């Protein structure tokens, strides 16, 4: 319940944050909303010696349109994203995903940056980012990198962000007017997804079907070839490695992936 001992450092700017990360290396973790990191620390599953609190860096809380891209600061909370008019117009899938994360209290604190870096394969933000073809912008002391979502998630709770880098913003191509679908099977309303599916603009992504959010490339191929929703859905579970636990085995999760893909695609057609 009580996190292990750590030293708390506060960064007033991105530069200061990077300097602290460089100073402490592997021993430091970034603290944003804290709703991925602190729960793990309270169960003593994570034990960083230093927390660098970036929560006051106002620059990272902006949402803006930049041409045909929506740029979302790393510290934007799920609640902010779910209620943003800009996001509602340009990224309705993201608005839906953010609005379904946890409960209202969690959404007031959890951030898109924190959620993406945490990279839980069951989670909503990684799924939405991958489906949307987002680009994750990461700042290092030497360079700023733009990482496509397809290259961002590397494994369980592992991303392409280096220990001395900070995720500063996420850029989404505007999906205004495009059909989209977002389907999640949960037992209880607030549960992690047994399986999640998100689709927009011909991209289809899956949550809880592997060690990271996955593109359903077989389904996308069938869709692009004009074979129809059912044919696409039938291929949704190809090349996946779903978790086996009390919520389902491989066969069940694969079946659910197919069902939810069909439903998400149907919604996308209806809403496009």
């Amino acid at each position, binding site marked *: *319940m*009580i*996190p*292990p*001992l*750590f*030293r*708390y450092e*506060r960064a007033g700017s991105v530069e200061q944050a990077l300097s602290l990360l460089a100073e402490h290396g592997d021993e430091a973790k970034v*603290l944003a909303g*804290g*709703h991925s990191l*602190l*729960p793990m620390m*309270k*169960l003593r599953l994570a034990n960083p010696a230093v*927390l660098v*609190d970036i*929560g006051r860096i106002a620059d990272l809380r902006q949402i803006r349109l930049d041409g045909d891209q929506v740029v979302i600061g790393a510290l934007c909370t799920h*609640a902010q994203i779910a209620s943003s008019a800009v996001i509602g117009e340009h990224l309705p899938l993201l608005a839906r995903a953010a609005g379904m994360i*946890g*409960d*209202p*209290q*969690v959404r*007031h*604190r959890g951030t898109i940056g924190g959620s993406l870096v945490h990279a839980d394969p069951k989670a909503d933000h990684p799924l939405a980012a991958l489906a949307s073809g987002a680009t994750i912008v990461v700042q290092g002391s030497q360079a700023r990198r733009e990482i496509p979502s397809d290259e961002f998630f590397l494994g369980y709770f592992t991303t392409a962000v280096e220990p001395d880098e900070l995720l500063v913003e996420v850029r989404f191509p505007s999906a205004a007017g495009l059909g989209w679908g977002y389907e999640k099977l949960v037992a209880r*309303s*607030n549960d992690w997804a047994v399986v999640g599916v998100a689709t927009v603009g011909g991209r289809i992504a899956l949550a809880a079907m592997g060690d990271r959010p996955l593109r359903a490339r077989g389904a996308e191929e069938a869709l692009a070839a004009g074979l129809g929703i059912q044919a696409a859905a039938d291929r949704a579970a190809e090349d996946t490695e779903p978790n086996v636990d009390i919520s389902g085995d491989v066969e069940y999760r694969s079946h659910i992936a197919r069902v939810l893909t069909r439903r998400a695609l149907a919604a996308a057609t209806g809403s496009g």
Partner: protein
Amino acid sequence: MINVSITVNGVARTEEVADRQLLVHFLRDTCGLRATKVGCDSTSCGACTVLLDGVSVKSCTVLAAQADGSAVTTVEGLAGADDELHPVQAAFHREHGLQCGFCTPGMVMATVGLLNENPNPTEAEVRTALEGNYCRCTGYHNIVRAVLAASEGSVA
């Protein structure tokens, strides 16, 4: 150890706290405000819900350090100057929305937060909005009635 300045129920407090002190323990142990409870260790149950800068948060998953410079409202800060019950408190009383009372402070604060953002929720919206607040005693039936009764223009 670090210094934090947090306004709690309108009273400015400056304290030296452990780096790892959770906001809920700051409220309970440092400020002596024990209405806010700890009910779990997985950010699930919401017994620790308070308002932080006006929005509901689970104080078990916020460091006191993160709340430095902010304002916190707990259930002890809700009643009026003459100790009159806040409308949400009064609604919980009228509708028998509490039994053992352990979840109640968090439930009341989550409700205040909800009605600030959505003054006239439907029953379905109330139930979804409270999915982060667990109760074992009431089955939620009367809690939902209390929230609807407290909301604007509701038919109790």
